[in-house]
């Protein structure tokens, strides 16, 4: 299947700052795709290139087989939901939503019907005649969403869609976005710095750092099989031990000895880091890999976190356990993990 969007070797720099460095990505039809990375990683630049507000220095962008770059933003079958929502303050909600259809020269009856329909879909029919300044944050976001999907674009871009909302509304909108994406059958590309947002929304995530694509994978794969140290630490929490790959596939760490892992493709003798998730470390007194003492415990309701001081290692090793822990501070513990869960990342 040919991808809906093909980004081929795109580079973009602003003065001495490299925003995008040889980025290639494919986005498929009906996919919920996320561009994830810290601020300054180039994700917003890529989004603006897709929308048509930014140019490239090198590379090509294809949409369904046609060259997108020479097409001005107002002729692209792509709509963007702005981070600030960018609702027109002088127009009512329905006029905001109708704006794109009116520019297409649609008959008035069709415009009215489609606006009413999309306001119903996003659940803000009752606000139709209000001005944006009279709406709550959640309502504004729904108007912005309605305005962006009413033209039925091939591609919907969402710039940090949930960042301006408070926590409760954000969780609600998260579900809403997923539902909508199924319902309207539009390809969504969301840009976010929030890994939880990306993980919960997207079918696939591209992690960017310093203008380079680090990894493109489904959320579960990104979490369980990160391919770079950046991905391993940016997504979720991880215990990282830098060292050298041994012949049996483990990692020899200065001060700790050989830690068990399955090195995968990393050859013995190479510098590498071992990453093990806190929930994959178990307490084991019989045959522990590491021994230490509990320095601190934190209870989060569903789970608890233990910070374990290990002699010879400068930073506490973090272990999570289901439910409340009965282990107190100062208790000596043994730590163990299944080598299959330990990821070895080449330097």
């Amino acid at each position, binding site marked *: 299947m040919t991808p809906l969007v093909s980004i081929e070797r795109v580079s973009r720099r602003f003065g001495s700052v490299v925003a995008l460095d040889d980025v290639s990505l494919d986005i498929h039809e009906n996919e919920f795709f996320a561009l994830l990375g810290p601020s300054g990683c180039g994700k917003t630049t890529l989004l603006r290139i897709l929308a*048509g507000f930014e140019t490239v220095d090198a590379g090509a962008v294809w949409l369904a087989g046609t060259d997108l770059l020479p097409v001005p933003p107002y002729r692209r079958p*792509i*709509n*963007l939901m*702005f981070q600030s929502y960018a609702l027109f303050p002088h127009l009512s909600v329905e006029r905001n939503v109708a704006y794109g259809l009116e520019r297409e020269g649609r008959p008035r009856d069709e415009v009215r019907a489609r606006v009413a329909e999309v306001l119903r879909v996003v659940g803000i029919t009752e606000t139709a005649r209000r001005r944006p300044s009279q709406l709550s944050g959640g309502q504004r976001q729904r108007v912005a969403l309605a305005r962006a999907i009413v033209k039925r674009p091939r591609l919907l871009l969402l710039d940090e869609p949930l960042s301006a909302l408070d926590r409760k509304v954000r969780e609600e909108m998260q579900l809403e976005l997923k539902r909508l994406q199924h319902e309207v059958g539009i390809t969504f590309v969301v840009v976010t710095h929030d890994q939880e947002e990306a993980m919960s929304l997207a079918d696939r995530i591209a992690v960017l750092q310093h203008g380079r694509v680090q990894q493109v994978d489904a959320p579960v794969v990104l979490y369980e099989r990160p391919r770079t140290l950046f991905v391993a630490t940016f997504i979720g929490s991880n215990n990282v031990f830098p060292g050298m790959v041994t012949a049996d596939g483990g990692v020899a760490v200065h001060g700790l000895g050989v830690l068990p892992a399955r090195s995968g493709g990393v050859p013995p003798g190479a510098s590498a880091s071992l990453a093990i998730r806190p929930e994959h470390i178990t307490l084991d007194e019989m045959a522990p890999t590491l021994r230490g003492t509990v320095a601190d415990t934190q209870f989060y309701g569903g789970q608890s976190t233990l910070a374990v001081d290990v002699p010879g290692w400068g930073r506490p090793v973090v272990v999570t356990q289901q439910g409340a822990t009965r282990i107190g501070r100062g208790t000596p513990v043994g730590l163990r993990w299944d080598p299959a869960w330990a990821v070895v990342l080449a330097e």
Partner: protein
Amino acid sequence: MRSLRWGVVPLAITFAFLYLPILVVVALSFNASDSQFRWAGFSLEWYGELAGNREIIASLGNTIVVAVGATAGSVVLGTLLAIGLHRYLRWSALDALALGPAIAPDIVMAIGLLALYVTAGVTLGLHTVLLSHIVFGTAFVAAVVKARLGHLDPSLEEASLDLGATPLSTFFRVTVPGLLPAIVAGGLLVFTLSLDEFVIAFFTNGPATPTLPMVIYAMLRFGLTPEINALAALLLVVSFTAVIAAQRLTGLGGSDE
């Protein structure tokens, strides 16, 4: 609270200082006596005289033609200048330079404009006054509109383009409505400034088409007549109305963010 009560005294003195001349003119315009210095009861006589003075009425027509034309010209040029400076030339020296004609002393502008017209061989008349007023008017409108542009969300224009509006359509449907309070305020400012502008008009006008301030000046040379007071009072009403409207509009513009 005590400090507030005593603070009223200097406030009252200041406002008296500011408004006494205006009150005197308005009061005298209703004076039945034809002497400036003797009160002889309330009368609308001078307003009647004023209405019958064809010279004044004709000059009022000239003034309104210039004021309306200068407002229209300045609003268009000033808005475009502000947008151009804001969007394409982020250079503060140029911003200051654009404000020059508004800051420069009228007499300097007047001499410069006159020299320019004479050198270029342009016949002086109402059209040269109009052109001259557009020169400083444009600077005023540009300054007001530029201040507003800084507060406008640039993603509004992008949203319009994104939704399929051409750049031209975006300008009229999103940019201009966003700037409207500033455009109207700037326009009203230019209108009131042009209405009573004397120095530049005096230098750059031809003899056949005097503006109102020029006629008033000419009348003064034959001694003050109470007609002038009535005229001044009327001008005051027009100017104040325009300025209050401008302030209200800019106030509205600021509060909708």
